[in-house]
């Protein structure tokens, strides 16, 4: 059963075609990496999936449901959560409060004037669980804006996890990180994926991370689908080699 299907998606910005006729099908439980040289349209593709803007043509199907024209917040309700290439957090709130907003929305409390004691306790339990999952339990009371870059990235993932998503979209989770931080985030993502319940699609530049984590890899180049396959297949794919080396040469 495919959890996410993108059918022939195209996105134009004026005369620029950022994404051209790209299709993708991700089954439940897979970890898919989307790679490609700069300007390949990876983030645009993510924005189409998550609903930041609709595609010019094509369809997005989530869990058998056409969500092409659905606003972003409604897709979240269906079980889609994402992070951004440039960290999007609530800088002046503590880590715990950042996570709490997501947890309350996921629990359906966003319009509630109050929550009962039992609901509050359950919510609290879930928040603490998410915090320790993301390795932030000992930093929960710090303001997110004051954390180190790597911890901010982890906090953003924690916020997405608080939504209890079925599909997690990660846009360059290791962007701007040193080796140690990259290792920690990679371990975190691996842990999330381990039991196979959470389907993850991630954009990543660091090939060590990609080949370490991905079940399958999708390669975009200049807005078009260049290749798709297992890490072993992609590693020996001539077109992919050419696209990357062509850039380097």
């Amino acid at each position, binding site marked *: 059963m495919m959890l996410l299907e993108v059918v022939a998606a195209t996105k134009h910005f004026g005369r620029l075609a950022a994404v051209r006729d790209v299709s993708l099908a991700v089954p439940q439980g897979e970890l898919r990496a989307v790679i490609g040289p700069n300007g390949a349209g990876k983030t645009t593709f993510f924005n189409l999936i*998550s609903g930041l803007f609709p595609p010019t043509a094509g369809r997005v199907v989530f869990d058998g449901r056409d969500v092409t024209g659905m*606003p*972003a*917040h*409604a897709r*979240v*309700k269906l079980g889609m*959560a*994402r992070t*951004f290439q440039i960290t*999007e*957090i*609530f*800088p*002046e*709130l503590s880590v715990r*409060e950042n996570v*709490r*907003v*997501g947890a*309350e*929305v*996921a629990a359906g*409390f*966003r*319009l*509630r*004037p*109050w*929550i009962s004691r039992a609901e509050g306790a359950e919510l609290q339990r879930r928040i603490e669980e998410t915090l320790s999952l993301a390795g932030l339990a000992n930093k929960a009371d710090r303001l997110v804006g004051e954390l180190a870059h790597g911890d901010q990235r982890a906090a953003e993932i924690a*916020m997405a996890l608080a*939504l209890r998503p079925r599909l997690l979209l990660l846009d360059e989770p290791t962007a701007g990180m040193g080796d140690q931080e990259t290792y920690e985030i990679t371990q975190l993502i691996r842990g999330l994926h381990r039991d196979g319940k959470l389907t993850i699609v991630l954009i990543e530049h660091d090939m060590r991370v990609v080949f370490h984590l991905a079940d399958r890899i999708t390669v975009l180049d200049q807005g078009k689908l260049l290749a798709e396959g297992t890490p072993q297949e992609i590693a020996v794919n001539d077109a992919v080699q050419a696209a990357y080396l062509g850039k380097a040469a």
Partner: protein
Amino acid sequence: MTGGEGARKLIALGAIWAALLLAPYWMPPLGGYTALGTRVLVLGLAAMSVNFLLGFTGVLSFGHAAYFGLGAYGAGLALKFLAPSTPLSLICGMLVGGIAGAILGALIVRRRGVYFAMVTIAFGQVFYYIAFQWSSVTGGDDGLRGFSRRPLDFGAFSVDILSNAESFYYFVLFCFALAAAAMGFVLRSPFGRTMIAIRENERRARFLGIPVERHIWIAFTLSCFFIGFAGALYALLNNFADPKGLHYSQSGDFVIMAVMGGMRSFWGPLLGAAVFVILQDYLSSITVNWMSFIGLLFVFVVLFFPRGLLGAIRRKVQA
């Protein structure tokens, strides 16, 4: 939150309410008078309503005087034509301001930033000109007269809030406390946290599953109910409703009070209103150019205390 911070908050809260409760006793020796305190409360509540949006949802309305003024006219017209009842007039004023806000808010919330501010001004001015032109109902340029607040009738006894300034002050303080409690209640709720989430990062809020426009609309509507209530109290305070109360310059005054006092804090706008009203009272007896002095102070505060007067005080206490 640490225990020390919690205790400090409790002390500050106690000090604020003590100062408000005892105002008719400490203001006159300092050269003030009770009606001035009443004015601070009413305009403070209005500034807090503006700040409910500005400080806690992160959207700037430059047209909130419209809903303030509608509240005032609503209360005045209710007293004049409906029934001579003070509570009824307050409810009418609040409903008129709030319902107008709910309707227009639906058209406004799709805009952001400066466009949001411009559209709020435009709608505000529409009401100003209606009040100005429709003389047969609103009294036009002269304002709405011919009504006055009524004694509070509790059956067994009644309280004269018309001629007794102290009684009226405490009545307004009671209303203010109700509104402030309601506002605080909303801000502490899950919904209140979504408002702050929108202020902090709209995109993140949207991708956490919050329908941002709908939540801004609810916040806008609530804030219009609050400021409509403040406007109704203002009409009772003056026994008069003035088209100037709807004008965008009045909206600007509310924004100045909120920003000067400290828009990130719940009580900041009340402090801003106190400074504004007291300076206005004092300076306007000396010079007609009193506004330029308030303007100077405003610029000074914005430049040197970006978190407002209350923010600066708070920092001093914490240091």
